[in-house]
């Protein structure tokens, strides 16, 4: 009764489910799902191998709009469910979609441990720096001073930098892109997919209703070239509308600074070359913030190690080889037993 998957190439739209999308008109999530559809089609991932896990939030509705398998779970726990799924069924191609509250507030610990263990999961954090679904409370990524229904006088706690958290937890792949950056997104998602282990991708996402324009200072078309930098392994860290700005070592030798080629004697040779295996560099790039620095986009760190699920299955296989499973009766009779005979 099995139905063969058609051999025809899958088109982006084939990855969309028949369910009407329920995000607010103008929400950045629309752009992201488009980018994901396109990326998956470019990779031709079979629909039946694909599973999207999510928690709860606006972002977390994502699986319903995918034609793949999907599990809309509970707030903050998607990485834990996905870990179990991957361990139980390592053939699956598992993606997680999380909001910033979902991934870093209630779910912070699961996010950290999935990253630490290096489970082969593609973890997408849709960071709109706000709680969308519960109507606009500030989140752990909201900027200091954010006024929200729960912080009418402005928030006073410092936000997390998601990629710094991921690196602090031992992340082996961290990357960043943003919703409307449709040219950029597929490359990042493909690199994340290619990385075997936990791939952590922050996707900056505009919430048009509760936090509109909060990223405009660097994502807006007019300023994006000057206020962000797209990093590529092996390429110099150059940016700017005129391609004349760059990231160089800071004068004290530790740390980095923004320089302008042609000013104060700076030449292209002074510009650092991106090395996606350099964790120190990655930590500094992850932490770059406006207005002093451009925001870093692209694969900041990509330094694979054996994935947890792979090690677990290796160990399972080794045990099975050393100790072949017997029958249930053998299991029950292993160790000391004694027999009472009839009429004893």
């Amino acid at each position, binding site marked *: *009764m099995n139905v063969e998957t058609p051999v025809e190439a899958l088109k982006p739209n084939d990855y969309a489910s028949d369910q009407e999308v329920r995000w607010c008109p103008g929400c950045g999530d629309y752009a992201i799902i488009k980018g994901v559809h396109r990326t998956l089609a470019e990779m031709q991932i079979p629909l039946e191998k694909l599973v999207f896990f999510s928690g709860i939030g606006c972002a977390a509705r994502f699986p319903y709009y995918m034609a793949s398998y999907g599990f*809309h779970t*509970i707030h903050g*726990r998607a990485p834990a469910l996905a870990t*179990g799924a991957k*361990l139980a*069924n390592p053939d699956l191609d598992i993606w997680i979609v999380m909001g910033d509250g979902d991934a870093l507030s209630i779910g912070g610990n699961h996010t950290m441990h999935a990253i630490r263990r290096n489970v082969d999961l593609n973890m997408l954090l849709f960071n709109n720096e706000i709680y969308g679904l519960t109507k606009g409370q500030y989140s752990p990524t909201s900027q200091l001073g954010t006024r929200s229904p729960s912080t009418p006088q402005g928030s006073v706690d410092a936000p997390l930098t998601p990629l710094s958290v991921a690196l602090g937890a031992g992340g082996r792949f961290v990357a960043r892109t943003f919703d409307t950056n449709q040219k950029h997104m597929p490359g990042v998602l493909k690199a994340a997919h290619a990385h075997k282990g936990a791939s952590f991708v922050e996707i900056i996402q505009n919430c048009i209703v509760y936090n509109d324009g909060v990223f405009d200072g660097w994502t807006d078309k007019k300023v994006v070239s000057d206020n962000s930098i797209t990093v590529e392994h092996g390429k110099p860290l150059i940016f700017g509308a005129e391609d004349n700005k760059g990231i160089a070592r800071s004068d004290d030798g530790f740390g980095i600074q923004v320089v302008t080629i042609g000013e104060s004697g700076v030449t292209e040779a002074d510009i650092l070359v991106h090395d996606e295996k350099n964790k120190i560099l990655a930590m500094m790039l992850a932490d770059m913030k406006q207005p002093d620095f451009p925001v870093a986009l692209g694969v900041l760190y990509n330094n694979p190690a054996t994935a947890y699920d792979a090690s677990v299955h290796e160990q399972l296989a080794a045990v099975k080889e050393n100790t072949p499973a017997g029958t249930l009766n053998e*299991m029950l009779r292993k160790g*000391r037993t004694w027999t009472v005979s009839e009429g004893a």
Partner: protein
Amino acid sequence: MATNVATSDGGERKALDSVVIRFAGDSGDGMQLTGTQFTQSTALMGNDLATFPDFPAEIRAPAGTTFGVSAFQINFASYDIQTPGDDPDVLVAMNPAALKVHLKDVPKGGTVILNTDAFSDRNIARAGYEENPLEDGTLDNYIVIAIEINKLTNAAVEDCDVTSKEATRCKNFWALGLMCWMYNRDRQPTVDWVNQRFAKLPNIAAANIAALNAGHAYGETVELPSGAEAYVVPRADVQPGTYRAVTGTEAVAWGLVAGARKANLNLFLGSYPITPASALLHTLTNLKHYGVTTFQAEDEIAAVCSAIGAAYTGALGVTSSSGPGIALKTEAIGLALVTELPLVVVNVQRGGPSTGLPTKTEQSDLFQAVYGRNADTPLPVVASRTAGDCFETAIEAVRIATKYMTPVILLTDGFLANSAEPWEIPDADAIPDFPVEFRTDPEGFHPYLRDETTLARNWAVPGTPGLMHRIGGIEKDYDSGHISYDSDNHHRMTKVRAAKIDGIANDIPEQDVAIGDTTGKLAVLGWGSTFGAVNQAVGRCVKEGLSVSHIHLRHIHPFPLNLGELLSGFDKVMVPEMNNGQLVHLIRDKFLVDAESITQITGQPFKVSTLEREIRSRVEG
């Protein structure tokens, strides 16, 4: 009735029907090990037995303190035994603190064996004695066997190449040797175990064996004080078959593995350590070759969630914990319930509330199991009665979870988990299969399509072509499985979820009576690990002709269909529980019978005598 009989080793021994021995000493004195070895020998000699390990929450509290005392009680007999015994006939106290804590439980005239080398002034004071109990009359009413065990042990191991510290650590084997002599236990199983355990440390092995033999020889040669003598406890007339000693932890593990095999699934355990549930994780992780994957998660929430994730992809999801950890899982259990995925949640209950008494036993998570979730979330609850029964209940939990696509809660407790009993090993091949059939046919598929009889939804596993679908915690449309906020649909889905669980009552055995008639003056209704004590208490009363019966529940939710009728045949119903009264409320609610609660919340199993008293007060006169 004790009679003198000739024994295999030639001596003349007094025959006893049953004995209760309690070994007690410092946490570091190896009392659990001593007890376990004695248990093994006793089991191999064909006695029926039951044990009760009782140890502190501290890992190794400072030597000599009362809160650092660790104890192990064994009851063995030539007849059917059901409890570890009310009061010990013999107390082996390795130090003053052990004596201080446990002497009060020894009836007058009982035997107390003491390691006098441990009765230093300092230890006596640490135990909270003002005077030396060996001298101040404390022991006047007991048969006291006071021995310099340290010194004798050291002498015995002199030729073994061990340090003096290592030598002294053999003293528990010396004591074990003496008890083996006294109750005519075979030493060979212990010798074998020691040789295997210390294969890489032959000097340690030799020392332990030397101490064991020396203790035994001491009994044979030294004249014991009057009243103390050598006994024999004839083998019990047990059902023919192959036996082993089993703890509840092992039995649950094997039952889950057997269930998974019968369901034709791999088993995935997501767990987070917690006393007394951790041992299940430890046991299952050593069964990897039986298709078991274990995952020590970052917390209980991740543990249950990983199991749900695994279930979603086609494994049998299992998670294990104790009360406080189960509390953390309740939100996620709601998700498993509403997505209708098979999940077994094992709760090894312990003393509560909160951190409570983590190493003591209690039955106080029944309310949590049945009612402890937000919203209308009925789910099946199954409870184990004995260590061996854990095997069957674990299989039953898997059967229900997979057949009905539902989380199932399996209740055991610290007593069941840790105590060992001889278990007639069942023939696993005789247990019926209940293979899961995954959905593969896309024709007419949607994820909430239900089986007409069981009302279970069909299970389509990621990876299956053509069956791609989405599930989740938002209410789903009955007819399409898509999310739905429709009012009537929610009502309908709530009702069908409840009907599915209620329907399980048609698929479980009718409630039987464990002992006694099916009608009478008093039904003693029990559940869980009180089985042995209740059964023995009722058994004695029945023998005396009292009109009392023992009914013991395995299925707490839903109840067996005939339970109400059965209970209505009794004038009174009494519900003894190791909690402040929980099952009793479900019974009263469901059947409107004026069931009475008997509670004991001491972190200790019921004594048979306590229950007998309660029974008599209700049926006599």
